């Protein structure tokens, strides 16, 4: 047993070293901008860069809109499948997993071909149209996570009883969905939403190929042109990802608390 414990600690320590080393190194590197001493200059340069603010704001807004669009597509569908169409369940689940199977670059390639300027729906012809296409692409990417999160949330509530109760009180479908189901799965939506946020905020391939001024392409541009600022960006990106995961954990904890109260 002693030997097992020793090897376990050793395996763990080696793993921990590999995973923590790049974080430490990146942080150290990001502080090196001023010669001979550590400073936060690289962060200052990045934060003062108007391009940083614009691209970050763009990706931030894209993430929020993606989450809203995703919620409007996923919640009614998952609800309807649970309530009335259990026979469609495996098909819908399979479709929502497709974005994990089909590489993102192939999906965006398909978008560019299908919505080009000479097509029936020339979304790439205008800035607004391209933005719409970008959001829809991101909503597709987030489908596996959003659907899984919402479906798990629906599992914990009694969809049928809640629906019947709301209907017997005279609620229409919009009331049922908006005022009964949605608040009940809100916490589940949140966990899907934060994951979506983490994915969209630094996404590169869609934004680059659709030529949108997003944070991902900006980071790549920085990587090609600056020395220390990319490390500062990496530290920030890691902090954002970490923050999103922490918020997911908080959301799940909140939902457990919810269940006890009910």
């Amino acid at each position, binding site marked *: 047993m002693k030997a097992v414990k020793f090897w376990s600690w050793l395996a763990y320590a080696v793993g921990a070293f590999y995973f923590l080393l790049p974080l430490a*190194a990146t942080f150290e590197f990001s502080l090196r901008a001023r010669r001979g001493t550590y400073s936060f200059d690289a962060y200052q340069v990045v934060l003062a860069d108007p391009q940083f603010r614009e691209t970050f704001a763009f990706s931030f807004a894209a993430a929020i809109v993606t989450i809203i669009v995703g919620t409007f597509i996923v919640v009614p569908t998952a609800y309807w499948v649970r309530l009335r169409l259990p026979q469609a369940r495996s098909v819908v689940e399979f479709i929502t997993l497709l974005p994990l199977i089909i590489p993102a670059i192939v999906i965006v390639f398909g978008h560019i071909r299908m919505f080009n300027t000479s097509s029936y729906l020339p979304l790439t012809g205008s800035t607004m149209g391209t933005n719409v296409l970008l959001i829809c692409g991101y909503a597709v990417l987030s489908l596996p996570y959003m659907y899984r999160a919402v479906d798990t949330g629906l599992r914990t509530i009694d969809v049928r009883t809640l629906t019947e109760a709301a209907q017997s009180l005279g609620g229409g479908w919009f009331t049922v969905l908006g005022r009964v189901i949605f608040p009940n799965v809100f916490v589940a939506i949140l966990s899907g939403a934060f994951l979506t946020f983490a994915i969209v905020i630094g996404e590169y391939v869609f934004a680059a190929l659709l030529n949108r001024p997003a944070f991902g392409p900006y980071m790549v541009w920085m990587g090609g042109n600056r020395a220390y600022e990319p490390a500062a960006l990496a530290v920030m990106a890691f902090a954002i990802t970490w923050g999103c995961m922490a918020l997911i954990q908080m959301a799940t904890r909140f939902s457990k608390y919810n269940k006890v109260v009910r």
Partner: protein
Amino acid sequence: MSDLGALKRRTTGGSIAEFGKGLSVWLGLLPFALFVSLFLILPTMNIIVGAFQNAEGAFTFDNLVGLNQANILNAFWVSIKISLLTAALGCLIGLMIAAALTKGGLPIWLRDATITFSGVASNFAGVPLAFAFIATFGRLGLVTVILRDVFNFSLASIGFNLISFTGLALTYLYFQVPLMILIVTPALDGMRREWREAADSLGASSGQYLRFVALPILWPTLLGTFALLFANAFGAVATAMALTGSSLSLMPIMLFAQIRGDVLQNPHLGYAIAFAMIAVTAIANLIYITLRARAERWQK
């Protein structure tokens, strides 16, 4: 409930009203169906069909035959190699760490912290990950500098270069290993203590327990996760692009360049490359889905 439904169906079966009601039930899926058709299914079909069409829209195998060029085959091979390697190493290392956490007597808080960290690291892919590794193992990276200044040892002297196959593999492991930990830890939790005790009481050695009990139960999960990690690495673009620019020719990087500027001078060759990529990840995931179903039978 279902009895009542069956009774109702029997009494009104076949009527037009019933048909209309059935239809309206399916109509509830319309928004979803419309969305995924427009932005997921049809675009993908568009690519697949395009792979079998020539410039005039007639059916042809020429595009797939056209993949048979040295640079495309090479990119394909490098992509498959890096995906196989990082999937295999990711599985192995992830399994070791997960085993240490679940069966090795490490404190429970360490386990929770590791699972949380794995959730973060498996999503910390793309451009920032490449930056992190440049800051660590790059020419001026912390590890390179410390080895050079303190140990008077040059990483380049043993042939290590971050902007290479090895360097990219090292970087990919940063999201591959955590994904493995996330998937395999629950599977290891499902291994009952009684199984080990039963094997022990029958006189089995540790090796025999692993070979005849643990591995047969775990192998569908392991192979299935291997397939998932493979597809994960195979479709990754941003990390590789930010790390190596275009100096390392991978399948997705080649497709990226082709979409941007038709570098192969034949638009339909782009379709064929995309089709080949779908085919590879689809096969990998088919294996995953099949084995996953088998693995779950054991865990009930």
